[in-house]
């Protein structure tokens, strides 16, 4: 390698070159996150061990006491268990991001001529990959406890697509929380104080007919309920919410997609704003 006398480097690369560079930065950041997971595999506990535990716990303990019209509890609960796990595991994003922001490595990234958003985008892509692991774990444990999808491949895939789109939206929501939280404990408590209620106050794990009207109104419009109902419908599993009169339960697929897009539309720009604020003195 020849040592040239350094000269000032001009910018102004063409748009395609810049886009290619940005994509490469996202790839590098995603790869970095995956290396982290490989080094500390327990990070994957909430998408591998937890889904298996929840599936067994709900199907065998709660399921035996909860009658489901039109099918078994296992057939009913699988979509809900998928959503429960996707929702709660998104707090890993918030915690991971907070930890990242509190180490010096972000300062390093910010002095490099990279696409600054690659840090956040790379994380959201990592989240989709871990959400896929979560989905596979749920599917396998579901098949073991007796869940079966009853429809064609296209509809089954569409159900998983909607669930993963929602997981992607949640990763941006969790990203905002991670950027906003001062420490990992704050980010962690977000999971317990917000994500757990949101995933349980839904149709995910129990049929909603016995609920008082005011509660059912909340439950019917909860995005977790919409995504769960959409998956049940697309997989041909029991979906007692289909008889509910709320628009969201009559059109769960569109409601689920609309919720996901709305969350992304709000949280993505908010995350980039928070990121800039958090990383600029």
């Amino acid at each position, binding site marked *: 390698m020849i040592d040239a006398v350094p000269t000032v*480097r001009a910018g102004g690369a063409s748009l395609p070159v810049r886009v290619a560079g940005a994509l490469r930065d996202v790839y590098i950041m995603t790869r*970095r996150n995956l290396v982290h997971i490989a080094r500390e595999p327990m990070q994957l506990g909430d998408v591998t061990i937890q889904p298996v535990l929840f599936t067994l716990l709900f199907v065998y303990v709660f399921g035996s006491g909860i009658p489901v019209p039109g099918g078994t509890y296992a057939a009913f609960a699988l979509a809900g268990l998928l959503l429960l796990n996707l929702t709660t595991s998104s707090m890993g994003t918030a915690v991971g991001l907070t930890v990242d922001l509190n180490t*010096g490595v972000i300062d390093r990234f*910010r002095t490099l*001529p*990279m696409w600054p958003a690659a840090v956040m985008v790379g994380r959201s892509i990592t989240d989709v990959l871990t959400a896929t692991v979560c989905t596979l774990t749920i599917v396998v444990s579901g098949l073991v406890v007796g869940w079966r999808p009853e429809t064609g491949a296209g509809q089954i895939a569409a159900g998983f697509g909607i669930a993963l789109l929602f997981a992607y939206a949640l990763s941006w929501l969790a990203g905002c929380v991670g950027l906003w939280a001062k420490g990992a404990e704050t980010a962690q408590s977000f999971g317990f104080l917000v994500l757990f209620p949101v995933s349980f106050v839904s149709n995910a794990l129990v049929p909603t007919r016995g609920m008082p009207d005011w509660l059912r109104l909340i439950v019917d419009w909860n995005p977790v309920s919409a995504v769960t109902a959409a998956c049940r419908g697309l997989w041909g599993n029991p979906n007692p919410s289909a008889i509910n009169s709320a628009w969201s339960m009559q059109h769960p697929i569109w409601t689920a997609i609309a919720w996901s897009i709305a969350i992304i539309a709000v949280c993505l720009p908010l995350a980039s704003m928070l990121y800039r604020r958090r990383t600029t003195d």
Partner: protein
Amino acid sequence: MRENMVEAEGLTKRFGTVQALAGLDLAAPAGSILGVLGPNGAGKTTALRILTTLALPDSGRAQVAGYDVVRDPAAVRRNIGVTAQNATLDELLTGRQNLLMVGELSQMRRADARVRSEELLRTFELTDAAGRLLKGYSGGMRRRLDLAASMMTRPPVLFLDEPTTGLDPTSRYRVWSVIRGLVDEGVTVLLTTQYLDEADQLADRIAVVDHGRVIAGGTPAELKRLTGGARLEATLSVADQAALEALRPLVEGPFQISEDGRHLRAPVRSTAGLVTRVVRVLDAAGVDLEDVAVHQPSLDDVFMRLTGAIPESSVWPPDGQAAMKPELQEVIR
């Protein structure tokens, strides 16, 4: 007149009630080393964070490599390498992976990044540790890897915040020689340091910063001239008034005398044979001498004089010198 690769004018920055910078001016011509010296909390790191696009100034302007740090941070980032005060690398990657990642995120081709990282690992004697995770590195190893990371792209401007803090003397000299080598290639370096000898050894120009502004600037030689000339220090076996009488024609100003009267200090004009003459006149006066020396002014003197970090009285008598050193370090860090 060479163009300035780093230029700051009237930078101010306030954090809550703390005025970190109060109108800071800096300039580093291309291919030179600017040393920024100052006590703890003087604003050195804040200035560096602004120049490296990590912080925004409240007012004032700054250019690096000809680009404005506020209006064109992306262009600035293409031209700089930064070693911050705290380690800024990834704990869960190996040393080699860290360098590759920094290179690739700086748009280096992977093959080039690989060649460059091996080169730097050798330079900083990290080849043996290159495959280990960073969390197993010692403080000094992290520091060296951080320095290597800032040099991955051979940037024309390097910012080093206390580059040798925490390094053993051997590594320190090695880092110095690497920095000198880069400057020979035309790189411009801005470094902050708490070690006065480091500024003295490396810097072409020094800016002494205190309370957020530059209180003195110049070459190390110019700064030393600020404190006046050399000084004579003599230790007598027993206090003796005759010594003062004998020495008076040789000195340039009033004596400072320790309480027991055995230690004398006075400004002198440093000339060849001065110590010989001192010994001769004291011998002729029948005074027993234990120790005598002519001290050239050091940056320590300049620094204390300018910042008032240590009152002159506490530096004296010279028995206190040994005890003074760690205290001085403390004040300057």
